[in-house]
């Protein structure tokens, strides 16, 4: 138990250092966060124009879309700021950058995940809050549920990112593929449930778990569904365990890049 606490402390310190490092370039930090905020608002403006012409998308209104953007942006913002290192797993494996981390007597996956903080994530977090306020779903009663669902969506994104990054253990230079599959995950999660039917819907609830980041949390918030919440929690736990297992199976195949370098 003491070991686990120590691992967690190291992880927290690592995340703190990454955040300090990303925030230290003040101008870049403000600019990137601001532009991410503007970018999210521009993407959302499509739905404002859409709903000013058409009343609903099979029961989904502008409030539901704002809530969807709130969950997805919040989850992605948390992921970028606190767990951003997992985005670079494929590249680290291919370029042999795990060498310097693998020798440390700490949990390797936590070290990788906490090793980077992406500045633009702060813009996502601010826009998430704005979207929740706009949606009208943010009430004292809903607040704990929303927090849990943003956290589970963040964990699903992180697990998917680890799984895609781990492909590099088998495929070698796969960071372009990993990056693109990750883009697909986010793209599919930004649209209402009624768009997807049949096999595609099944696909989005299993192989590419966009449904658990986007429309399933929204349906759960709308209906305040306990069964929905339990399904999401179970799926998230399963997906996290799967990602950790696959990463460790792949790690046995890791061969050092023999890359000369210098790390402090």
């Amino acid at each position, binding site marked *: 138990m003491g070991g686990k606490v120590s691992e967690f402390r190291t992880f927290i310190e690592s995340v703190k250092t990454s955040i300090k490092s990303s925030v230290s370039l003040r101008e870049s930090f403000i*600019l990137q966060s601001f*532009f991410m905020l*503007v*970018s999210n608002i*521009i*993407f959302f*403006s*499509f739905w404002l*124009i*859409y709903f*000013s*012409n*058409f*009343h609903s*998308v*099979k029961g989904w209104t502008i409030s539901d879309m704002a809530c969807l953007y709130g969950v997805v942006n919040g989850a992605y913002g948390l992921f970028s700021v606190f767990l951003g290192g997992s985005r670079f797993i494929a590249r680290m494996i291919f370029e042999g950058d795990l060498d310097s981390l693998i020798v440390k007597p700490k949990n390797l996956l936590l070290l990788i995940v906490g090793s980077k903080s992406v500045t633009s994530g702060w813009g996502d977090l601010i826009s998430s809050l704005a979207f929740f306020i706009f949606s009208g779903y943010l009430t004292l009663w809903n607040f704990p549920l929303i927090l849990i669902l943003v956290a589970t969506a963040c964990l699903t994104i992180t697990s998917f990112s680890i799984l895609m990054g781990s492909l590099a253990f088998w495929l070698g230079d796969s960071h*372009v*593929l990993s990056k*693109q599959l990750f*883009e*697909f995950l986010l*793209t*599919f999660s930004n*649209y209402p449930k*009624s*768009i*997807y*039917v049949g096999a*595609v819907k099944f696909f989005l609830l299993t192989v590419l778990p966009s449904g658990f980041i986007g429309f399933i949390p929204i349906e759960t918030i709308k209906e305040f569904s306990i069964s929905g919440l339990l399904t999401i929690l179970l799926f998230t736990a399963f997906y996290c365990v799967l990602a950790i297992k696959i990463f460790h199976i792949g790690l046995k195949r890791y061969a050092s890049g023999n890359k000369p370098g210098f790390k402090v």
Partner: protein
Amino acid sequence: MIFFSVVHNGNNRKEIIVRSLFFMVILYIFSNLWKITQFSNEADHHLMVWYLAVTELIMLSVPLVQVDIENDIRSGDVVYQLLKPVNYLFLKLADSLGALIFRFLVLAVITVPYCTYLSGFTPPPLLLAGTLLSALIAGIVFVIFHMMIGLTAFKLQDSTPIFWVWQRSGFLFGGMLLPLDYYPWYLKAFCAFLPFSALLYKPANLILHFSYLEYVSVLSGLLFWGAVGAICMNSLYLSMLKSLRVNGG
């Protein structure tokens, strides 16, 4: 040079496969959205799929040449490139046009059968060819503007924020996902003063409302904004050369 660039881009198969997949995913999502949208006219659903295909075709074909130019400027490589017996701008333009033509052709080949499958409708061949030609010209004008943005790195060091503003503005003011006819009147009026509607909305709108008069108007708009972009790009380039001569690079 354009031909060599086309061949070079043809060798980068991984990149074009990923790009084509992304193109197909976006079209699939929006085709489903239009299917469940209650348009006043049933035919609008089919046409909207084609409209989006044209705007996406333009956006996904244009190479990010501004990144290359910025890298050349920041690393100082631009000084060595200026020594070549070819104009630096022509070199970059030729390289970008090669990439644009290759991507455009591949995505256009995908567009026709895929959109026919999604919408159950194919526009008349002449209309389609005319629209695709105007879309390709719009892509060329986009390249000119991207080069201009890249050259701003000489003054600003980093052109990324300007590119972000440009790209996001294109998304909103160019009517990339939804034709400007669906926008509130004041926003549509504002968009008419910007280049984005001439580069995205107008070429793609030919699929929805085609007439020879409209076609001439679209080409004139592209020519006008192409000229504006080229003049701005050239003046930025000349000012960069002047500074290099004065300061010695």
